[in-house]
C-alpha cells in the first residue's frame, strides 16, 4: 500500500515539472534565437549519453568505453546513410544496434573484472576500436574522417538540414530515450538491475542471472549511446576519430559523477549544471578550464553523492511539507 502511494505521488509530482520542461523546450526555437537552439540541441545529445551511461555504470562499475559506443553509432549511421543510401531515420537506430552489439562484445570478456582493472581494460578495448578508425583509412577515413554525411531527408516539406527542424527531431528522440530509460528504471527489469546494483550476491541468490542482466544493461546503454552518435553525425555532416577520444569521455564522467548515479535524474542534472557552467564561462577563454576544474572539485567535496542527491533531498523536503504524512496503518 505504501509503495503504491509513493508511486502515485512520484508520478504526480514529477509530471508537472516535466510537462513544464517539455513545453519550455518546445518554445525555445520560437523565443530563444537560432544559436540557443544549437546549444540546447547539444544538451539533448549529452543527456542521452549521460543517462544511458548511468544504466551501464550502476549495474556493475565505471566503464570507459561509452564514448566510443557513441562513436560506433556515429560511424555506423553515417556510413550506412552515405555509402548504402539507408534513410537516416533508419540508419540512426541501426547505428544504435551496432553500438549495442559492440558494448556487449566489450563487456563479455570483462564480466568477472571489477575496479581499476575493469576501468583500464574497458578503456583499452574501446581505444582499440577508436584507433582502428584512425588506422584503417579505408573505409573509415582515418584521421581525415568522413564527410558529406547526409542529413535526414525532407519529410512532409520540412528540411532537416535546418537548425530548428533538427532541434525538434533531436528533442523527440531525447524524450523517447528518456521515456524508455524511465520505464526500464521503474519496471521489473529495472528492479532486477537495482537489486544487482545494490547487492549482487543477494540478487544472485534470488535467482537473478547476473551476467545476462549485465549484458542486457550494457547493450541497452550502448544502444542509446549509439543513437546519440547518430544524432550527432547527421547534424555535423562529418565524423572523425578525435570526436570520441578520452577528452570527451572525461566530460561525460564529470557530468555523471557530479550529477550522481544514485538518483534517476542525477545525470540530467549533472549535464545541465556542468555544461551550463562550461558554456557560461566561455568569456574566460583560456582560463576557462581552471574555473571548470575548480567548480568540479568544489561540488565533489561539498556535495558528496552528487547534485542529484542534493536535488532529491530538496524535493523530498518540499514533498514532505505539501503532502500529509503517511502513517503505518494507512
Amino acid at each position, binding site marked *: 500500500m505504501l509503495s503504491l502511494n509513493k508511486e502515485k505521488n512520484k508520478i504526480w509530482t514529477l509530471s508537472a515539472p516535466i510537462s513544464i520542461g517539455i513545453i519550455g523546450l518546445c518554445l525555445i526555437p520560437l523565443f530563444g534565437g537560432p544559436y540557443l537552439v544549437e546549444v540546447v540541441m547539444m544538451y539533448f545529445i549529452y543527456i542521452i549519453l549521460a543517462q544511458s551511461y548511468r544504466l551501464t555504470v550502476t549495474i556493475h562499475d*565505471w566503464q570507459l568505453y561509452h564514448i566510443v559506443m557513441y562513436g560506433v553509432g556515429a560511424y555506423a549511421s553515417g556510413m550506412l546513410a552515405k555509402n548504402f543510401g539507408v534513410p537516416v531515420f533508419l540508419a540512426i537506430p541501426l547505428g544504435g544496434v551496432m553500438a549495442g552489439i559492440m558494448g556487449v562484445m566489450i563487456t563479455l*570478456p*570483462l564480466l*568477472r*573484472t*571489477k*575496479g*581499476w*582493472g*575493469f*576501468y*583500464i*581494460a574497458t*578503456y*583499452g*578495448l574501446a*581505444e*582499440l576500436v577508436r*584507433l*582502428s578508425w*584512425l*588506422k584503417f583509412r579505408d573505409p573509415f577515413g582515418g584521421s581525415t574522417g568522413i564527410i558529406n554525411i547526409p542529413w535526414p531527408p525532407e519529410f512532409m516539406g520540412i528540411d532537416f538540414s535546418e537548425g530548428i527542424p533538427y532541434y525538434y527531431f533531436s528533442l523527440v528522440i531525447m524524450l523517447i530515450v528518456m521515456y524508455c530509460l524511465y520505464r526500464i528504471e521503474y519496471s521489473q527489469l529495472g528492479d532486477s538491475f537495482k537489486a544487482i546494483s545494490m547487492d549482487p550476491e543477494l540478487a544472485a541468490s534470488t535467482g537473478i542471472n547476473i551476467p545476462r542482466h549485465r549484458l542486457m544493461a550494457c547493450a541497452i546503454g550502448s544502444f542509446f549511446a549509439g543513437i546519440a552518435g547518430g544524432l550527432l553525425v547527421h547534424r555535423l555532416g562529418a565524423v572523425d576519430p578525435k570526436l570520441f577520444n*578520452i577528452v570527451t569521455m*572525461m566530460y561525460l*564522467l*564529470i557530468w555523471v*559523477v*557530479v550529477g550522481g548515479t544514485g538518483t534517476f535524474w542525477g545525470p540530467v542534472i549533472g549535464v545541465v549544471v556542468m555544461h551550463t557552467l562550461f558554456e557560461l564561462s566561455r568569456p574566460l577563454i*583560456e*582560463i576557462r*578550464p*581552471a574555473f*571548470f*576544474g*575548480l*567548480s*568540479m*572539485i568544489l561540488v*565533489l*567535496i561539498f556535495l*558528496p553523492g552528487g547534485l542529484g542527491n542534493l536535488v532529491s533531498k530538496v524535493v523530498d523536503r518540499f514533498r514532505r511539507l505539501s503532502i500529509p504524512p503517511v502513517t503505518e496503518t494507512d
Partner: protein
Amino acid sequence: MSSQLLIQTIANAIMASSMYALIAIGLTLAFGVMQMANLAHGHFFMVSAYAVYALYALSGWPFWWAVVAAVAVGAILGVIVERTIFRPLQGDVVSGFIATMGLMFVFEVLVGEIWGWGLSRPIPSPYMGAVRFLGAAVSFQRVLLMPFALVSISGLLLFMKHFRLGRALRAVALDPEAASLQGININRMTALALGISGAYAGLAGGLMSPIYAVTPSLGGHLILPALIVVVVGGMGSIGGATLAAVIFGFIMTFVTTLVDGVTAVMVSVTVMAIVLVIKPQGLMGRVIA
C-alpha cells in the same frame, strides 16, 4: 631487421622502459596506500618539469639543484592534494578520480598563464651527446635515468620492507582498518604516501625535463601510459609496475620501429586487455578479498 637496428631498438626499449618505470612508480605507491588514483600525477611531473625550467633554464641554477627543487615541489604538491582533495573525499574512488581530473585543468591553466602557451619551453640538455654501446647510440640524459630508476625502485622497496614508516604504509595498503586499530594514523600515512608519490613524480619530471617537450599538455600525454603500467602491473605492486613498464616499453618501441606508432598503441592496448581479462588484479597484484 638488421643487427644494427636490432641493437639500437633494444637500447631504445630499455630507455623507454626506464622512463615508464620512473613515471609509474610514484603512482603505484599512491594507488596501493590510498586505493585511489591520483590522475594529477602526470601533472605533478609537468609542474616539476616547469620548476626545472624556471630554476635551471631561466634563473641559472645548477641542474641538479633544480632537480632537488623539483622533488620538493612534487612532494609539496602531493601533500597539498592529499589534504585538500583526497582527505575530504574519504575514500570515494570515483570522486577522487574526477576531482584530480579537475586539478589537471587547474594546473594546465596555471602553468600556461605563467610561462606561456605555444611552443615548448626550451630547457637545455645538461648532458648533450650520446653514449655509444655496441653500435647503438642513446642520449646520455636518458642513460642517466637508469641508475635513478633502479635506485628509486630498490630504495622504495627497501623503505617499505625495513623501515617502520614504510611498513606502516604497507599495513595501511593491506588493511586500513587493522592498521588503524594498531594505532597507525591513517591520515598521516596517506599524506606521507602522496608526498612520496609526488616526490617521485618530481624526480621524474625534473630528470626528464630535458627529454620531453615541456608544454602544459605534457601531463595529459603521460598519465594514460602511467595508469596502464600501474594497473597492468598490479596496483600497489612496485615490482609489478616495473615489470609492466618493461613489457610496454619493449612493445611500444619494437612495434613503432617495425610498423608504426598507431599500430604500436593498438598492440599495447590489446596486450593490456588480454592481461586484465585473464588477471584483473594485474600481473603482480593482490586479489582484493
